């Protein structure tokens, strides 16, 4: 075993994203049709597969997917919405009008050559068009048919006419209700409109529905190796996000307690909060009693706070205790800057009484600070992608580092119908004249 080389050097030599392009891709034997419409969850799901090398054919109606227009403040980059710009990655974009019979026939021929189909239409729409799972499995019994919608394919709400959006899924999950600042005593909504149930800014319900579905697709592909059978998969975005609620369901069902807003403290943990500092805020974490002791020690409060006598964290986690201790902690953190507190925690891990145990201290950053942080840049998170259409674009990438089949972002996005010629030639044998006819007829 080549243990003489330090672990961090050894592994960096093998999983640095800079050498990703020299390595094979895990899923380059898989073909995916992504029909998603008005859904970032669908786009993100096929991105997860495309990052691993799956051949993803992204099928949009001739006018393009509405999701392209979902962009912050209406801003476009070379004609493209900024969200779509990040999630068109590695996909071949074609157009196809599924509202026309001829379009559906073309889809069926593509399905015969595909492994996975992703769709986000309201339940029943694909069936009405004669291209639902029951129709397509006759053409390709190995097909994995993945649907992501607001309420799923079955159950009382599944025929709802309401569309699927991230903020709705967040609202439906039970998580938004319990996240947010506590309304100050004697105040109301009009005075403090920020002390309300607060959703996450990023499209987390959509993104993680996408990731759940991608994981489900991988499991279904694995099952297909042994059985040869495809199947239908169903994700409801509200359910997928709710699954991330780690304790509230059981707490409510068994103890009758509804998890309510607790600001930036934490209902289920101590020491675990954002704390104000001279120049912003830091996260403080110490989920072992020794880490909470180390924090007290680091702040010079070992004796005054009686840290030597602390034996477990259960008591500190109680609401009254948290409300008692938080102001004492904040009074200390306010004396320092973020950088000072981070440096103190690193120093404590080397020289403190409880070293190497040290509290978690992390700056609460703006995304600009995050993007400029040399640590993430070195690790390949924000390496600009050189895209043939959109130029150098920064998207978050390389979130997995892998030794054999690393993910990569070969291009970020394509305009509507960009690969029509290439894909229709490759999969259908259509010549340019045929494409021209189809285009004229509104089929592509």
């Amino acid at each position: 075993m080549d243990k003489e080389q330090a672990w961090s050097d050894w592994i960096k030599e093998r999983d640095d994203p800079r050498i990703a392009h020299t390595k094979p891709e895990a899923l380059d034997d898989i073909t995916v049709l992504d029909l998603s419409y008005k859904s970032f969850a669908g786009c993100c799901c096929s991105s997860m597969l495309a990052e691993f090398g799956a051949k993803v054919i992204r099928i949009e109606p001739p006018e393009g997917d509405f999701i392209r227009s979902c962009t912050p403040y209406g801003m476009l980059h070379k004609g493209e919405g900024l969200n779509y710009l990040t999630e068109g990655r590695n996909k071949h974009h074609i157009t196809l009008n599924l509202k026309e019979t001829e379009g559906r026939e073309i889809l069926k021929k593509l399905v015969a050559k595909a492994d996975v189909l992703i769709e986000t239409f309201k339940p029943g729409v694909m069936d009405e068009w004669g291209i639902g799972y029951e129709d397509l499995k006759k053409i390709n019994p190995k097909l994995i048919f993945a649907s992501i919608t607001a309420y799923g394919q079955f159950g009382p709400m599944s025929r709802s006419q309401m569309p699927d959006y991230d903020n709705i899924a967040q609202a439906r999950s039970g998580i938004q209700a319990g996240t947010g600042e506590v309304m100050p005593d004697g105040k109301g909504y009009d005075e403090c409109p920020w002390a309300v149930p607060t959703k996450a800014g990023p499209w987390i319900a959509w993104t993680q529905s996408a990731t759940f579905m991608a994981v489900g697709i991988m499991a279904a592909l694995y099952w297909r190796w042994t059985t040869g059978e495809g199947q239908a998969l169903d994700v409801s975005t509200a359910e997928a996000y709710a699954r991330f609620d780690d304790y509230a369901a059981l707490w409510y069902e068994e103890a009758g307690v509804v998890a309510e807003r607790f600001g930036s403290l934490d209902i289920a943990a101590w020491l675990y909060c954002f704390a104000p500092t001279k120049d912003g805020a830091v996260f403080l974490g110490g989920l072992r009693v020794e880490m909470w002791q180390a924090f007290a020690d680091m702040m010079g409060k070992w004796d005054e706070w009686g840290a030597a006598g602390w034996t477990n964290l259960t008591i500190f986690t109680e609401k009254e205790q948290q409300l008692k201790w938080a102001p004492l902690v904040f009074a200390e953190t306010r004396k320092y800057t973020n950088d000072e507190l981070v440096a103190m925690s690193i120093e404590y891990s080397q020289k403190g009484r409880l070293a190497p145990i040290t509290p978690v201290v992390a700056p609460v950053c703006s995304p600009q600070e995050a993007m400029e942080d040399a640590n993430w840049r070195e690790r390949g998170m924000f390496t600009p992608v050189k895209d043939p259409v959109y130029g150098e674009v920064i998207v978050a990438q390389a979130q997995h580092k892998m030794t054999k089949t690393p993910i990569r972002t070969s291009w970020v996005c394509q305009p509507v119908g960009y690969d029509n010629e290439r894909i229709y030639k490759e999969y259908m044998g259509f010549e340019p004249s045929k494409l021209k006819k189809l285009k004229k007829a509104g089929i592509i």
Partner: protein
Amino acid sequence: MEEEAWQDYKGKKYSKPLPLKGIRVLEVCTLILGPSGPGFLAMMGAEVIKCEIPPMGDTCRDMTPFGYLFKGNGPVFTHTNPNKYWIGLDLHKPEAKRVFLELAANSDIVEENLRPGVMEGWDVGYRQIKEINPGIIYIAKNGFGQWGKYAKENRPSNDGASQGFSGYAWMSSFPGQPPLKSRIYPCDDYGGLMGEMAVLAALHYRKRTGQGQYIELSQSENIMRAMSWVWPYQQITGKTAMPAGNRDVSICPADTFYSADDTFVAIAAPAPDEFKGLCTAMGRPELASDPRFKDHLTRLREDNATEILKIIADWARTRTAEEIEKMGEKHGFAASRVYTVKDVANDWHFQERGFITEVDDPLLGQYHSYEFPVMMAKTPPRVKRSVRPVGFDNEYVMTHYLGKSQDEIKQLYQCGALGKWADVPGRRPPAGWDGKAGIIMPEGDKEKE
């Protein structure tokens, strides 16, 4: 048509196969980032053997909402660790390292979330395991990955640290207010989930080539991947992306509104027919063709968005949340009350789908949990077995997986390689345990699952 695939999904769930049957996972994970991933695989049928350092085990056992324990267990812990087998193995001991390597030799996947190099320091790291099992898929998840400045400083991390580091918290607060921490642990759970994406892709590759590999993952990097527009926006404008409270700045209208019954309702209506539907519901159909709001890109502009959201907010205050939901259904825009966990638990739809599922566990009894949220028509994932005290399945794992004799097991206990729970909350069996419930007989139940 698709009813056929989904007919009586809930009722037939337990008689169908699981997609990852036969996959074996060895886990040395604590808290949520680490254990959540193998938990997802276990719900899909993988055999997950969770190794904890006895007698205290996983720190997650201490995570209790305001100190509440469910039959002696922390609810975060039960939620994160379904369907696993539990061994107490003190990896500081040479005999335990040998046992671990024997298990690793017979596993498909190893998952750990310790700081960089710790497993290797114990002689059970990737470089040791791949020598005896070249097909192994090994994933290490932690705050900062295995290399880089922060990893080198050996910094500890938590979900909250990643919410801070990534800018996620910054983006999830109200303008002018300090960054807000989420009530949940999104960086942990999302990191755990993302990890399995890589693990299953690696498994696919191994099926094709026989080759295993090493995967590393940082909690902060994963949540950054979920922040979409923020990065190119900052690159292109040179400006910092700013928070917008409940307003979605990429979809208009999409926001949370205060309604007449002193509650909150989320609305989204960006597509032309949806926006038109909302305007009609508000009794203001002319707004749909107002030059400020006529198409989505125009409507998204800061000044126009502010105006339309104000109009909707004023209207929403005159209607109850339920009325608005009904109008959404009628007029084809999206609306939902902001559900509390009580609303989720009592929601008929979630119950009918089996998303709210009843676990009937021999040790912890009956309770409700959230199901794995990918419904798979032929291979439905499921929660079937709850958490166990530290080292609870030692005997089963040692005999069933490693063929150890009673004498060998005894020796492993004597030298401290194997161990069981400390007699403290979160570790020990529930009060009144009969000494039998929950124990898997070496030749018994497993095959029946």
